[in-house]
C-alpha cells in the first residue's frame, strides 16, 4: 500500500466516529433504494399502491401483486373494470426506467413468479410518464400461450391502447391499461392526504401492532425487540421471545429452524390483539415484575358529583401550583444558570428547575380541569383549596423546600395504590366514571382525554421530586434555602410585593375569562395570560433574591360567583396594575424602571384583549 491520499479512519473507534450526514434536503419520498424509505418513515410499497391512476394495488403478498380496488372514475372504470372483476393480478408492467432511454426502448417486466416485493421493485423503477399494465386472473400467466401481449407491452404503450378482454361469461381474461404514472404529491408538494389516510404509509413498519414487528429480527434495529431471551427466573435460557405458550414449565425450547420458530410464535392477529402479553426484557431476561394494573373497580359518580369534584380538584391544582412555586422560590438559585456556575449553584439550580417544572405542570392541570368543566357546562374554578386532598387532608401553606416539606411533596405525588387516594387517585375515579357513561357525558371523548393527561403527568411528579432529593443530597438545608426577612425592609420591597400581587390578580382574571369563553376565546387570552405569568415569576424572583417572601395574595374578585367579568372588573384591574407599576417605578432605580417598562406593554395588551372579548361576548 502506498501513502493515503485522504484521511481514512482505520480502527473501530475511528470508524464509529464518522459523522453520518443523513439524506440531502433534495431527497424525495420516492427516492428510497428499496421498500424502506431512508429513515423508515414509511414503507414504499404503501406509497406505490396507487401508482396506476384509478387502481389500488396490494404488494404485501408472497404470490405477487394484486389489484384490490377500482376507483369510480379514471381509465380502468372507463374501460368497464369494476370491483366485481377483482381480484386481478399484475402480470406485467412496462415503461421507461432510465432518463436516457428512448420511448421505443422502454422495457416490459413480466411479473410471473415474482412475489409482491419483487413486483413492486419493477413498479418503483418506472419513471413518470406513460406506463402500461397487464392484468389477469390468478397470480401470473403460466404458459406462453396465455400471454396476450407476447411479452411486450411497449406497442400498447406507444399507441396509448388499452383493452379489457373478457370470456363468454364476462370474466376478465386479460386487461391492458395504459396511462400516465400517478404522481403522489399534491400541487403543494405534500403526499395527498385523500389518497393516503392515516396509518396507510406506516402500515407494515416495525412498531408493535404492525406486520414487521413480528417478522424483523433483533439485528434489524427498527424492530427494537429481542429474539432470544432467558426466562424471568433465570432458569431457562435461549427461549423464543414471541412464543405463544407462556405458561408451560419448562417453557418450550426454541427451534433451530425459521419454520420451527414461526410455528411457536404468536401469529399476526394474536400479536395485534395480545402484544401486551410480551414481557419487559432487561439484560436479555424476561421480567415478571412489570405487570398490567388490576382492573379498576370504583363506584360510579353522578354528573353533578363529577362537576363538584372537578371544581374542587381545580382548586387543589391551583393550590399545589402555588405551593410548588413558593418552594421553588425558597431555593437559593438564580432564575437563569450563570455561564460557569460552581457545583453548588448547579445543583441547587437543577433542583429549583425541577420543582418549577412541576409547578408548571400543575398550572397545566388547572387549565385542563377547567377545560373539562367548560365541556361539562360548568363555570370555571379558579379558587385555591384551603385544604389539600381527601385522604391527605392538610391545609394549604406556603413553605420553603425543607427536607421535611420535600418528603411531603413526594408523599402527595406518590402514585395511588388504592383508587381514590392521593390527588391523582381522585382523577382515576372521575376518569372511570366519565369513560363508562357516554350517556351522561356527551363530550366524553374530550373529557376523558384531559383527565388521562392529568393522571399520566402525576406519575412523573413522584419521580421528579425524588430527583430533587438527589440534586440536594449531601447539601445542608441552610446552604440551599434562602433566608427570608419577616417584613419588607423598605418602600421598594413593599411596592415590589404589591406589583407581584397585581400580576397574580391579572393572571387569574385573564384565566377566569378565557376558561368561561372556552373555544370562543380563540386561545388569544391564553397567550396573554402566559405573559402575565412570566411577569409574575420574574417579579417573584426579584422579591425572593431580596429576601422577601412572595405573598400570592388571592384576590376575592376571581373566586366570586357570577359573570366571568362583571362590570368594571377589567377597568379596575387596569387601574391597579398601572398604579402598582407607577409606585414601584417611583421608588426604584433604572433596573426597576426597565422591569416596569417591560411589564407595562404586556399588561396593556392583556387588558386590551380582555376588554375586547368582554365587549364582543357581552360578559358584563
Amino acid at each position, binding site marked *: 500500500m502506498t501513502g493515503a491520499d485522504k*484521511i*481514512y479512519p*482505520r*480502527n473501530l*473507534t475511528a470508524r464509529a*466516529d464518522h459523522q453520518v450526514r443523513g439524506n440531502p434536503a433534495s431527497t424525495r419520498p420516492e427516492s428510497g433504494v428499496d421498500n424502506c424509505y431512508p429513515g423508515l418513515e414509511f414503507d414504499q410499497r404503501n406509497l406505490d399502491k396507487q401508482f396506476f391512476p384509478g387502481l389500488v394495488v396490494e404488494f404485501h403478498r408472497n404470490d405477487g401483486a394484486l389489484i384490490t380496488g377500482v376507483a369510480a372514475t379514471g381509465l380502468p372504470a372507463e374501460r368497464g373494470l369494476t370491483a366485481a372483476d377483482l381480484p386481478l393480478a399484475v402480470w406485467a408492467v412496462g415503461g421507461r426506467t432510465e432518463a436516457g432511454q428512448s420511448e421505443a426502448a422502454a422495457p416490459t417486466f413480466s411479473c410471473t413468479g415474482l412475489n409482491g416485493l419483487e413486483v413492486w421493485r419493477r413498479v418503483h423503477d418506472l419513471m413518470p410518464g406513460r406506463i402500461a399494465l397487464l392484468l389477469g386472473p390468478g397470480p401470473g400467466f403460466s404458459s406462453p400461450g396465455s400471454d396476450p401481449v407476447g411479452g411486450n407491452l411497449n406497442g400498447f404503450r406507444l399507441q396509448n391502447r388499452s383493452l379489457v378482454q373478457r370470456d363468454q361469461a364476462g370474466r376478465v381474461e386479460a386487461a391492458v391499461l395504459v396511462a400516465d404514472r400517478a404522481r403522489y404529491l399534491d400541487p403543494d408538494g405534500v403526499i395527498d392526504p385523500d389518497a393516503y389516510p392515516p396509518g396507510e404509509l406506516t402500515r407494515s413498519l416495525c412498531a408493535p401492532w404492525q406486520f414487521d414487528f413480528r417478522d424483523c429480527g433483533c439485528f434489524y434495529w427498527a424492530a427494537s425487540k429481542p429474539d432470544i431471551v432467558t426466562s424471568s*427466573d*433465570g432458569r431457562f435460557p435461549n427461549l423464543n421471545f414471541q412464543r405463544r405458550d407462556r405458561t408451560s414449565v419448562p417453557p418450550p425450547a426454541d427451534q433451530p429452524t425459521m419454520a420451527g420458530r414461526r410455528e411457536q410464535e404468536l401469529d399476526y392477529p394474536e400479536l395485534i390483539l395480545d402484544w401486551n402479553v410480551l414481557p419487559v426484557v432487561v439484560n436479555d431476561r424476561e421480567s415478571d415484575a412489570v405487570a398490567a394494573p388490576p382492573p379498576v373497580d370504583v363506584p360510579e359518580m353522578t354528573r353533578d358529583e363529577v362537576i363538584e369534584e372537578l371544581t374542587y380538584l381545580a382548586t387543589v391544582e391551583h393550590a399545589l401550583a402555588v405551593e410548588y412555586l413558593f418552594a421553588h422560590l425558597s431555593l437559593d438559585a438564580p432564575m437563569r444558570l450563570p455561564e460557569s456556575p460552581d457545583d453548588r449553584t448547579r445543583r441547587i439550580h437543577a433542583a429549583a428547575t425541577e420543582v418549577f417544572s412541576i409547578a408548571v405542570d400543575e398550572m397545566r392541570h388547572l387549565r385542563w380541569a377547567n377545560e373539562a368543566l367548560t365541556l361539562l357546562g360548568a363555570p370555571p374554578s379558579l379558587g385555591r383549596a384551603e385544604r389539600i386532598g381527601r385522604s391527605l387532608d392538610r391545609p394549604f401553606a406556603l413553605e420553603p423546600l425543607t427536607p421535611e416539606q420535600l418528603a411531603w411533596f413526594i408523599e402527595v405525588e406518590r402514585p395511588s395504590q388504592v383508587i381514590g387516594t392521593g390527588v391523582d387517585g381522585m382523577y382515576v375515579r372521575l376518569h372511570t366514571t366519565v369513560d363508562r357513561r357516554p350517556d351522561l357525558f356527551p363530550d366524553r371523548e374530550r373529557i376523558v382525554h384531559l383527565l388521562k393527561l392529568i393522571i399520566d403527568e402525576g406519575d412523573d411528579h413522584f419521580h421528579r421530586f425524588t430527583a430533587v432529593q438527589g440534586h440536594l443530597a449531601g447539601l445542608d438545608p441552610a446552604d440551599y434555602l434562602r433566608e427570608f426577612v419577616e417584613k419588607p425592609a423598605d418602600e421598594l420591597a413593599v411596592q415590589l410585593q404589591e406589583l407581584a400581587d397585581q400580576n397574580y390578580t391579572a393572571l387569574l382574571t385573564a384565566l377566569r375569562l378565557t376558561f368561561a369563553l372556552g373555544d370562543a376565546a380563540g386561545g388569544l387570552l391564553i397567550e396573554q395570560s402566559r405573559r402575565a405569568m412570566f411577569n409574575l415569576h420574574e417579579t417573584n424572583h426579584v422579591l425572593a433574591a431580596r429576601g422577601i417572601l412572595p405573598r400570592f395574595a388571592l384576590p376575592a374578585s376571581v373566586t366570586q360567583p357570577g359573570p366571568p367579568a362583571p362590570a368594571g372588573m377589567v377597568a379596575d384591574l387596569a387601574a391597579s396594575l398601572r398604579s402598582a407599576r407607577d409606585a414601584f417605578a417611583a421608588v426604584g432605580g433604572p433596573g426597576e424602571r426597565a422591569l416596569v417598562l417591560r411589564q407595562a406593554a404586556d399588561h396593556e395588551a392583556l387588558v386590551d384583549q380582555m376588554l375586547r372579548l368582554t365587549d364582543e361576548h357581552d360578559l358584563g
Partner: protein
Amino acid sequence: MTVLLQIGRRPPDEPVTDASHARLFRSAGGAHLFVADGSRVYDLPDETAERVRTWLDGAGAMPEEIAPLMTGGPPRIDGRPLDPPPLASISLNVMQSCNMSCGYCYADEGRFGGRARAMPEEVAFATVDRLIAESAPGADLVVGFMGGEPLLARRLVHRVTRYADRAARAAGHTVRFAVTTNLTTVTPEDARLFAEFPFTVSVSLDGPAEHQDSVRRMRDGSSSYQRLRTGLDVLRRHGRPRHLSARVTVTSRSGPLLPILEHGIGLGFDEVGFSAVLVSPDPALALGPADMAPLLERMVACGEVALREIGAGRRYPFGNFETAVHQIHRGTHRPYPCGAGAGYLSANAEGDLYACHRLIDDHAYAMGDVTAGTDRTARARHLAASHVDRMEPCRSCWARYLCGGGCHHEVSRRGRVACDYIRGWLAFTLRAYAELLDTRPDYFTIDHPLDTGGLV
C-alpha cells in the same frame, strides 16, 4: 461523598500540551495519526502528516483538516471518575503459601509479607456469595483462585468451583473461572475440573529447563521444570482447560526473551505472555530504569516475529502482542489500568477485600469484607484518586488511555519507572497494528482466544 467533594469531580483544568492529544507514527503503509481521545487511528496523506508534525512539535497551528477529528464532539473520557460499578469478578487467595520459593514473587510466596495461611471454606463460600450479591442482574461473572499456590488448597478449589457454578446459575448468572498455578502439583482430578467448568488456567513459566530451574527450584531442590512438564502431561491426558496460558515473569536475569517465548509456544500453550518484575522481595531481581531499554528491545524482537508470522497467516500466540493489537483495533480507551477496585476485588484468607490480588493485605487498598460487603466509599475514593487524568505525568501522555496509568501495585511501590518502556511498546504495536490490518484484515474479525477473558 465528602471525599469525592473534596477531590472534586473533574481534573485540574490547566491545558495539557498538544502532543498529549495525538501521536503521529508511520508504518509500511504510510503516515498515521493516533488520537488519544477514543484511541482512534487514522491514515494520513503525507502532506497532512507534515503539517501535523509541525503542529505537534509546537511550531504551527493544528492543521484544518484534522480539526474535526480532534475537537468534534465531547471527549469520550472527560475526567469524571467512575462510580463503583457492580462487581463482575473476584479472586480468592485460597492459599497464602507456596511450594516454591521464587525470589521475585510479588506475593512473597503468598504470605504478602505476613504469615502463611489458608482460606477457610466458609470464607470462600461467602466470597462467592458477595460477588453474586453485588453483581449486575444476569451479568457474566468470573471467580479466580490465587495464592500462593492455589492448588495446595485443592479440596477448597473443587468445592468452591461447584458451589459458585450452582449459586451463580440459581441467581441467573453464568460464571467462569480463572486460576494461576505453577502446575507442579496438578492431579488428574484437577484437570477434569478445569475441563468440566470454563477455566482459564495461567501457568507460571520461566523458560527452558536450565533457565527455569536456575531461578525456580522446588523447595526440596528438585527441578520445577520437570514438574511443570509432568503437570502439562496431566492436563493433556485428563482434561485440557478451555484456555491455557503461560505467564513468564521477566527478571533482571531473564536475558533474551524470544527463546523463552518460542519454548512456551512449543509447549502448546494457547497464549504466552511476559510480565516484567518491578516489585520483588529480592530487589536484585526487580528491573530498574536501566533495564527498560533492553527489555523493550527484547519485547520488540518477539513482536517482530509475531508480526511476521501472523501476517503470513500463521498462528503465533504471543499474548502481549495479540492483546495490544486487538485493543488498538477496538480503540480501547480507559482511564484506569485495570478493573481493580472497580468491577474486580480480591479476598484474603480472612475474607477482607482488597483492590486486587497483588494488593492483598495492603491497608491502603482495603475495600470492605465479604460478610459486610464492599466499601463503596473506599472504592469511590480509589477510582477518583487513580483516574489517569488526575495523575502526573500521565495526564499529558499520549498513551494514557491505552495504558490507564500503570499497575496500582507497581506504581505504589516503585513509582512510574516503566513509562518509556510502555510508550515504546505501544508505539511498536501501533505500527504493527497498521501493518497487520493491511496484510491480515481477517485476523481482526475472527473470534480471538484472548476474548475468553481473565480476571481483570
